[in-house]
C-alpha cells in the first residue's frame, strides 16, 4: 500500500519541485518570483488548449511526447522512494531503466527532426551528444555500485541489507558519486550551467529548442515527462545522502522530502550563481563527472574494501 502511495505522491508532486527552483532563483535576484504551484497552472493551461501541427510532420512527431512521457513514468515504477519497496524490481533493472530513458530520448530527438526546422535539428544534435557522455558516467556509477553491493537493481542499492549511502562504508567514494550524479542531473535535465531553460535565443538552447513546435496537451506530456525525469535524478541523489534504518514510517518520508527539496534548492542556487558554459566546454563538464566516478571505481581495486 505504501508503495503505491509513494509512487502516486512522487508523480503528483513532481511539478511542485521545479517551483522551488524558480523561487530560489527569484530570491537571488531579489524578486518575489512566481507562485510555488506555477507549474501546475502551466500544465492546466496547456491541457485546455488545442494543438497546431506542422505540415512537415508525420506520426513520429506525435509519438515523441508519448514515448518520452511513458519512458519517464516507467522508470519511476522501479524507484524505491524513501526506502519503500518499489512497484517492480529485479536483478538487472537499472540497465533496463537507463535504456528506457534512452528510447524516450530517441523519440524526442526524431520528433524534433521531423519538423524540418534547422533550430530543432541543432538542439537534437546537442542533446544526443551530451546525453551519450552522461550515460557513460551513469554506467560507471553502476559499475561502482556493483563493486560495493554486488547488485544491479535500484531496490537493493537503497533498501537491501547493506544500502549504499553516504553514512555507510566507504562514504568518501559516495561523496564523489553524489557530486558526479549532480553534474549528470544538471546535464540531463537541461539546467544551468549546461543549458538554460529560461533563455530567449533559440540558437543557444538544447532541450527547449527541440520542443518548439509542440503545443497543447503534447507539450504538457513533454513537460510532465521532464518533471518526472528530474525527480528521478533528484531522488537518486537523495537516496545516496539519506541515512537509513534510523526512523520508520511518516518521519522517514518527511526527512526524504526534506532532503529532496534541499536538492532542488541546491539546483536553484547553482543556477543563480553560475553562468552558462560555452557550448564547447559542456563535454568537459560531463567528462569531469565521469572522471570522478571512474576514479572512485578504480579506488575499489583492492584499496577500499
Amino acid at each position, binding site marked *: 500500500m505504501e508503495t503505491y502511495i509513494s509512487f502516486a505522491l512522487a508523480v503528483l508532486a513532481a511539478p511542485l519541485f521545479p517551483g522551488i527552483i524558480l523561487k530560489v532563483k527569484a530570491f537571488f535576484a531579489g524578486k518575489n518570483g512566481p507562485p510555488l504551484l506555477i507549474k501546475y497552472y502551466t500544465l492546466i493551461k496547456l491541457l485546455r488548449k488545442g494543438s497546431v501541427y*506542422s505540415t512537415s510532420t508525420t506520426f513520429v512527431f506525435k509519438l515523441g511526447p508519448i514515448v518520452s512521457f511513458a519512458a519517464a*513514468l516507467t522508470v519511476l515504477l522501479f524507484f524505491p522512494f524513501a526506502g519503500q519497496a518499489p512497484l*517492480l524490481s529485479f536483478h538487472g533493472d537499472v540497465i533496463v531503466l537507463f535504456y*528506457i530513458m534512452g528510447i524516450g530520448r530517441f523519440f524526442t530527438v526524431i520528433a524534433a527532426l521531423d*519538423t524540418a526546422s534547422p533550430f530543432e*535539428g541543432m538542439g537534437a544534435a546537442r542533446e544526443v*551528444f551530451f546525453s551519450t557522455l552522461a550515460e557513460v558516467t551513469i554506467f*560507471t556509477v553502476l*559499475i561502482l555500485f556493483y563493486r560495493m553491493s554486488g547488485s544491479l537493481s535500484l531496490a537493493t542499492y537503497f533498501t537491501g541489507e547493506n544500502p549504499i549511502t553516504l553514512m555507510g562504508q566507504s562514504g568518501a567514494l559516495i561523496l564523489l558519486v553524489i557530486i558526479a550524479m549532480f553534474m549528470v542531473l544538471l546535464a540531463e535535465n537541461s539546467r544551468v550551467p549546461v543549458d538554460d531553460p529560461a533563455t530567449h535565443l533559440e540558437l543557444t538552447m538544447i532541450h527547449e529548442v527541440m520542443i518548439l513546435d509542440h503545443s497543447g496537451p503534447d507539450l504538457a506530456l513533454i513537460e510532465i515527462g521532464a518533471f518526472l525525469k528530474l525527480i528521478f535524478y533528484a531522488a537518486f541523489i537523495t537516496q545516496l545522502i539519506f541515512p537509513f534504518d534510523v526512523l520508520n514510517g511518516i518521519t522517514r518520508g518527511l526527512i526524504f522530502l526534506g532532503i529532496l527539496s534541499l536538492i532542488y534548492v541546491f539546483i536553484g542556487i547553482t543556477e543563480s550563481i553560475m553562468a552558462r558554459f560555452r557550448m564547447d566546454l559542456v563535454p568537459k563538464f560531463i567528462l569531469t563527472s565521469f572522471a570522478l566516478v571512474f576514479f572512485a571505481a578504480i579506488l575499489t581495486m583492492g584499496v577500499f574494501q
Partner: protein
Amino acid sequence: MGCPIDTTLTIVLYDLIRRGMMDTFLLSLTVLLAGGLFALLTCKLFSLMKAGYITITAVGCMIGLYAIIGPLQGTEVTTYSISWLQIFTLSFSIDPLSAFFLIPIFAICPLAVLYSFHYMDKAEQRLRIGVNFFFLTFLIIGMALVATADNIISFALVWEIMSLSSFLLVIYDYHEKETRKADYIYFIFAQAGAMFIFASIALAYSYTGSYSFSTFAVIPANIKVIVFFLALVGFGSKAGMFPLQMWLPHAHPAAPSNISAMMSGVMIKMGIYGIIRFYAILNATELVFGEMVLTFGMVSGILGVVYALGKNDLKKLLAYSSVENIGIILIGAGIGMIGLSSGNMAMASFGFAGSLLHVLNHSIFKSLLFLGAGIVLKKTGVRQIDQLGGILKRMPKTGSAFLTGSISISGLPPFNGFVSEFLIYYGAFQGLLLDGSPFIFTMLAILSLSIIGGLAATCFTKVVGIVFLGEPRTAKAADAQEAGITITIPMTIMAVSCLVIGIFPTPFVQTAFMALKSIKPLVPVGSEEVAVLTGNLAIAARIFLAVFLFSMLLRKVLYLRKEITHNPTWGCGFTQGTTRIQYTGTSYAMSVVDFFRPFVRVKTRYSGIKRIFPRQTTYNTSVEDISEIALVDHLAIPFLYFMRKLRWIQHGHIQLYIGYIIVAIVALLLFV
C-alpha cells in the same frame, strides 16, 4: 525382459531420427541447388525464373530450418562424411553451435531473395539476374556448409566457396568502375583473410597431424595462442573487425542491396562463427584469448559507430554500423572467454549467450536496414543522406519498418537489440568482482558498450531524422514512391520479429544458451536462473509497452474535442525558409565526430567568402577511416614502391620466362 528390447528400439529410432536430421539438411541443400540451376536454365522467362527461384529457395530454407530443430534442442551431434579425391575425407556435422548459426542463414536468405522479385525488375538484364541467383545459391549453400564443416579440409573448401560466390555477387554491376574497384578490394581482403586462416590451420596440423578439428585441443598452450591469433585475423577480416574492416564500406555500397543485406546480415557472421568455433575446439582457457578478443571488440565497436556517424553515404554508414555490431558481438564473446578463464561461469554463459543472440538479432535488423536503404536508393537514385528527406511520408511502409530497425539496432527496449546487449551487460557486470586486469577489462567493456549504445542511437536518429523525416532536400527525394509488395513484406516480417524477440525473449535466449553446449569447458548456468532473468526482461518490456499504450490513450482523451490546426513549421521569425536550410546529417554528427578527433581524420574543404558580393561558396567535409589511411600510407605505397623495383623481371621475352620455370623446377627438386 522388455527393457533391452525397448532400449534397442529407442536406439534404432533415435539413430533413424539422427540420420534423418542430417539427411533433411542435405535435402535442403539439394533443393537450394536445384533452385539455382532452375534460375540458370529458365532465365529467358524472366518472371517465371524469379518466381520459381524464390519458391524453391524458400522451400529449401524451410526444410533447412526443420532440419535444425533437433540440434537446437540438444539432440546428439550427427556427422556425415564422404571421401574426396581418394585421400581426403569431407566431413560435416551439426552440433548446437552450428545449428544456431544456421538459423540466420535459413531465415534471412529467403526474405532477401523474396525482396529481389521487385528489386531486380529489369527484364533486359535477365541473364545477369539469372547468373546472380545461381551464385546466390552457392553463397547460401557455402555458408550453410561453413557452419557445419567438421574437419580442416572441408572447412577450407567451403570457406572458399563462400568467399568466391560472394565476390561474384558483389560484381553484379560490373560495367561500373567503382564497383569493380570495390570488389577487387573485397577480393584482396577475402583472400588475405583466408590465407591467415589456412596458416592457422596448417600450424595446427603440423602439431596434431590430423585433419579433424577435435584434435586441436592437444596443441601446446603457447602454439594455441598463435593458432588462435592467426585465425582471429583471418576470421576478423571476414567479419569486419577493426582494423580489417576496410572492405565492408566499399563492397556493401557496390553490391545490390539484397546482396548487401545477406552479406552484412549473414555472411560476416561466419567470421564470428569461425572465431567462436576455433576457441571452442582449441579448448583454450588462458586469459589472453579473452582479452585479445575483447580489445578488438571494443575498438571495432566504438570506432565503427564513430565512422558510421561521420559517413554521408547511406550504405557506407550501414556498413560501418555492421563493424560496430561485430564489435558488440566480439565484446560479448570476449566477456565470455574472460569469464571462462577466471572460472566465473555466470559471466561466461551470459557473455557468450548475449554474443550469439546478437548474431541473430543483428542479422535481422541489419538486413532490414539494408533492404530499406536499397529501396530508398532505387526509388530516389540518391546515395547521400544530406540530399534525402521526407521519405516517410512518401514510403510509409518502408519508413516504418526502417524506423523499427533503427530503434532495434540502437539497442533500445522493447526491441530485440536490447535483449542481447542486456545479456552482455549482465555477463560483464558479473565479472566486476574479479580483481586485477580482468576487472579493468570488464569495466572498460561495460563503458564501451554504453558509449556504443549512445552513439548508435545518435547515428540512427541521424539516419531516420535526415532521410525519412523532415522535408525532402532535393527533387529526387520528393519523387519517391512506395515500393512493391514483395519488398515491403520481407521488411515488415523482419520488423515484426524485432519486436517479437524483444517482448518474448525467453525461447530465443534459451536457444542461444543451448548453443553454448558446443563450447566444451563451459558449464552454462542453470536454466532456472536464465528463465527468471528473461522473464523479468520480458515483463519490463511489456510494462513499458503497456505504459506506452496507456499514454497513447491518455493523449487521445486529452485531445477529445480539441481544435487542431495545421501550419508550416515555426521558422523562428525567418520567413524565407527553404528546405535546404534544414539541419544536415553532417552538421548533426560533426560535434561527436570532432570529439574523437585523433582517431578520425576529418577533411574540410571550404572555398571561403572573398568579395563583397561573394560568388557561390562551397563547404565540404569528409570523414576518413584511420585504418584505411594507415594501410595505404604505410603498407600499400611502400609495397608498391618495392614492387616497382622488381619490374625488370617482367620484360616480355618468352624464352627467359621458360628459363625461370626451369630454374624454379630445379630449385624445387633440389630442396624438397
